[in-house]
């Protein structure tokens, strides 16, 4: 009998937690639908659901990488400025006449390099992730400004816009990107060695090392992954706006972390489900969208979003509190 209880407990814990999250997400959806209807507006329309996903897509993509880093017990504050950097660099390259495909590739490579620098300093240099990425946040932002003397870039060919603004089966293609990227990363995290090793570093790095996992290398990889997704996020944003702004992405570090934590990944690393990060990002997106549709003044929006973040996680932790 005892074993029975434990069996359930061990396996289903994740699912139970996810359940709270899904219930929360659906609750928000229902609340907004009802309230909007009362206010004579539409929330739950096909078009608007698409909107929410498209609006959340950049954060959702960045949050994939952030999840990976947080799962190792780290943090990446440089994702926001990477988005800005990638935008300006990409803008300059496209303007110089390089084919868009090549530019995208180069930008992803840039993301890899940024991630590798962060990762190397953190894992081999033993500098806390918070410091390294706070530093690189500043450095990258500075370099972005220097790159085009602080000026934005616009006037891009249609091809760039097409990346993000195409429709496929009547749906914005961004939805497809988000789902594919999440599917890939969820597979990697649950079904491959790399993924399990990332989890093991967050859970107990020493144990992993003694068991033969090359923890330092894996840690670097996780920052590289974060760099890649930040770069992809930057490309998506660039394409969505068809405009490169050196300040783009500022504040995305906190937004992406919020998505990750609402999704239930512990800041201390080691446990959590990367798929739920998407739900976290969508919850944030829904809140923002719903409140704007209801024309709630912006400062009440901030307050409500703040409350919602806390409340969401509050319910998430109900079980832990009861366990005491």
């Amino acid at each position, binding site marked *: 009998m*005892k*074993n029975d*209880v*434990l*069996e359930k*407990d*061990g*396996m289903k*814990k994740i699912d139970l937690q996810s359940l709270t999250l899904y219930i929360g997400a659906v609750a928000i959806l229902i609340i907004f639908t009802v309230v909007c209807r009362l206010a004579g507006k539409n929330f739950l329309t096909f078009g608007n659901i698409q909107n929410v996903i498209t609006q959340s897509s950049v954060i959702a993509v960045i949050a994939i990488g952030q999840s990976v880093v947080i799962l190792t017990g780290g943090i990446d504050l440089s994702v926001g400025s990477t988005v800005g950097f990638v935008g300006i660099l990409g803008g300059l390259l496209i303007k110089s006449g390089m084919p868009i495909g090549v530019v995208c590739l180069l930008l992803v490579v840039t993301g890899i390099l940024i991630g590798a620098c962060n990762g190397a300093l953190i894992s081999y240099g033993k500098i806390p992730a918070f410091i390294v990425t706070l530093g690189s946040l500043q450095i990258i932002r500075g370099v972005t400004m220097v790159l085009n003397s602080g000026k934005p870039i616009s006037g891009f060919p249609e091809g760039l816009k097409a990346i993000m603004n195409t429709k496929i089966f009547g749906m914005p293609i961004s939805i497809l990107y988000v789902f594919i990227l999440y599917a890939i990363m969820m*597979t990697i995290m*649950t*079904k*491959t*060695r790399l*993924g*399990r*090793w990332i*989890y*093991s570093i*967050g*859970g*107990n790095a*020493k*144990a*992993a*090392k*003694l*068991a*033969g*996992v*090359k923890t330092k290398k894996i840690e670097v990889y996780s920052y590289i992954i974060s760099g890649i997704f930040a770069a992809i996020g930057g490309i998506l944003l660039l394409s969505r706006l068809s405009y490169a702004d050196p300040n783009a992405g500022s504040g995305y570090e906190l937004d992406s972390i919020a998505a990750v934590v609402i999704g239930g990944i512990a800041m201390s690393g*080691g*446990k959590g489900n990367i798929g739920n990060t998407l739900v976290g990002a969508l919850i944030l997106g829904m809140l923002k969208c719903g409140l704007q549709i209801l024309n709630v003044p912006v400062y009440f929006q901030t307050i409500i979003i703040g409350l919602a973040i806390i409340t969401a996680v509050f319910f998430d932790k109900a079980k832990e509190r009861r366990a*005491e």
Partner: protein
Amino acid sequence: MKENILEMKGISKSFYGVKVLNDAKLEVKPGEVHVLLGENGAGKSTLIKILSAAYKKECGIIKFNGECVEFKSPKEAIDNGISVIYQEFNLNPCVPIFENIYIGKEFTKNGLIDKKTAIKESKKYMDLIGLKVDPTVLVSELSVAQKQMVEIAKAISNDVKILVLDEPTAAITDKETAKLFEIINELKSDGVGIIYISHRMSELFEIGDRCTVMRDGEYVSTVNLNETDCDELTKLMVGRKVSFEKVENKYIKDEVVLEVKNLYYKNLIKDVSLKLRKGEILGIAGLVGAGRTELAKCIIGAYKTKRGSISLKGKTLKGNSIRESIDNGMVYLSEDRKDEGLILMHTVLDNVALPNLNRFGGLLLSKDKMKQVTQDFISKLKIKTHSPFYKVENLSGGNQQKVVIAKWLFSDSDIYIFDEPTRGIDVGARDEIYEIMRQLIEKGASIIMISSDLVEVLKMCDSVAVMKEGEIAAVLPNEDNLTQEDILSCALYGGNNDEE
């Protein structure tokens, strides 16, 4: 004679400029169980960690199968068939047991993780050691003993040529130990070289073939275990004799200082009632998972109990607050020093002072007094540390345990609940600790001692409460005729005889 499978020669290692290994030596033959013996802090674990490349050695050579090897990472050592169960657990609490067992050597199918096989294979090794838990249970849910068994399963699941066990039995009971020895014997017959570290003298003779004794980081000698006895080994190790006789307790009074009535906690503790008299040492024995630790934590107020009452010296506790218990003179020494007993990153002084801050001055605390008290305990318990300001994480396992004991000894309470107090402590130091426990009861304190070491239980306790599946199966008075077998049968089959 067979060739040595492993030779370590001239090994030296220093930490922060202090030599902890000096020209150490170890030779292991295939198919032998080689015991490594030495006082706490003698350098046994360090030597092992050098073998597995967890530490870098300063000088010396390691010959494996006759060839000089130089492993650069733990991975290389594992790949070469060197498998280590470290003294301190190295498990990832956030993931299931099977993942811990197969970390770094995951099964894959088409490049993707094959969970099914891993679960099946883990189950096999867990059965072997007698761990009856589902492999998908998270490690964070396991007790210390169960974690120890996971470590064993993890080590034997490797393709081993040399298996190192650093105090594998410190946290488990005789039943599991017997299983472990079966496994060891099987590996032995396959020609695996086994290095075995333990402070439980009796089992060394049961399992070991030869024994290398170390002192202060240096090699002392290697003896054949069938040509020596316990006293001689003890002498080699600590330089004096240690007695294993029970001493009569003259301080026991009739006054009941702690009374536990009908305690329930989840389904782990069922209707437990207990009485502890003044001056008594009450042992609590039982198999792994019998709920001894849970019981102690319920009594001390760390767990919220559903039903039942606890009264101290006639005063019923409001319950569920550790602080209340401590204020009323009852303290608990955790079995899990790493997770619950110590703040590893803090100094010896900080750890000793923490529960006793009230005693170091009023508004502002006196560091001098703390230093003096800590210094006293360092010499009294022979804690091998270089100063009171040394970080606990840099002490050897046994010495860390002594720090845990020191911090509670100084609390000067009336009731001490010791959970596996001598876990990982060498024979010499055990004796000092027993002596201190006797001094405590002499001063009028009472002790509950939870221990898996029945030798120690028989030696120290006035009576033994045996637990089975969350209940107290029997309370056996420790009279001349009580034997380990009596306790064991009670723990296994319940106490159909007297009491209750």
